[in-house]
C-alpha cells in the first residue's frame, strides 16, 4: 500500500492528494476534508483557528494510523495531511484520502482516520475569538466569562 502523511504550515493541496490516489486497481477514492467552522450563534465570534503539534510524535501517530488502516482494510493508497498554525474560516485543517478497490473500505477507512486523529494524535487547536482565545478540549483561555 502506498501512503503519505504530513503536517504542514501551508494550505493543503487536496486536489493533488486525490490525483495521487487514482490507480487502475481501485474503484473508489474517499476523501474527507475537515474545515474550520464559524459558530454564529453567539455575539462574540471566532475569527480563526490556530493549531499546534507535538512533533515528531504527531507525525509518527499519523503514520501509525495509515498502518492500522492497512491492517484492517484493503486500501491501496492512504494520504493524511494535517495543517498547523493559523487556519482561516472555510479552509481545510485536515485532508484524508483513501483509495480502495471498492467503496465500502474507502468510506470506512477515511472515517476511521479522522476519528483516530481526534483520539490519539498530539495536535491541539485554539479558537481565536474577537474577545480572547480558548483551547478546544481543555476550555482554558483568555475569553471573558459569559455572564450568568
Amino acid at each position, binding site marked *: 500500500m502506498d501512503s503519505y502523511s504530513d503536517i504542514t504550515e501551508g494550505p493543503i493541496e487536496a486536489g493533488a492528494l486525490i490525483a495521487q490516489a487514482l490507480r487502475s486497481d481501485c474503484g473508489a477514492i474517499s476523501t474527507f476534508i475537515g474545515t474550520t467552522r464559524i459558530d454564529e450563534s453567539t455575539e462574540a465570534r471566532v475569527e480563526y483557528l490556530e493549531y499546534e503539534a507535538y512533533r515528531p510524535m504527531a507525525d509518527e501517530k499519523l503514520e501509525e494510523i495509515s498502518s492500522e488502516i492497512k491492517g484492517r482494510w484493503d486500501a491501496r493508497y492512504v494520504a493524511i495531511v494535517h495543517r498547523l498554525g493559523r487556519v482561516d474560516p472555510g479552509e481545510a485543517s485536515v485532508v484524508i484520502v483513501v483509495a480502495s478497490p471498492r467503496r465500502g473500505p474507502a468510506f470506512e477507512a477515511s472515517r476511521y482516520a479522522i476519528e483516530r486523529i*481526534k483520539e490519539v494524535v498530539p495536535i491541539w487547536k485554539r479558537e481565536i475569538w474577537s474577545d480572547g482565545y480558548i483551547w478546544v478540549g481543555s476550555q482554558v483561555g483568555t475569553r471573558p466569562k459569559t455572564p450568568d
Partner: protein
Amino acid sequence: MSEAKVLLFGAAADRAGTRETVVNVESGATLADLWPLLVERHPGLAPMRDTLAFAVNSQYARMEDSISGGDEVAVLPPVSGG
C-alpha cells in the same frame, strides 16, 4: 539525580506559563513522582491533572512508568486535532 526535559503543549503550556522546563529526577522515579515537582513549580497546572496525558520520548506513558535522565517528557492536554 539527573535531568529530564519536560515539554508542555496547548492549554498546559498556558497554565504553566512555559513550554519547556527541566526537572531533576531521582533514579527509579516515575511520572507520578514527577507530577508534584511540576505542580510545585507551576501551580496553574494542578487543576488540569485529570485531563492530562503524558508521553515519554514520544510514546504515550502511564503514571507508573519510570523516567530517567535525558528523557523527554511531554505534558499533553486533551487532543483536539481535525
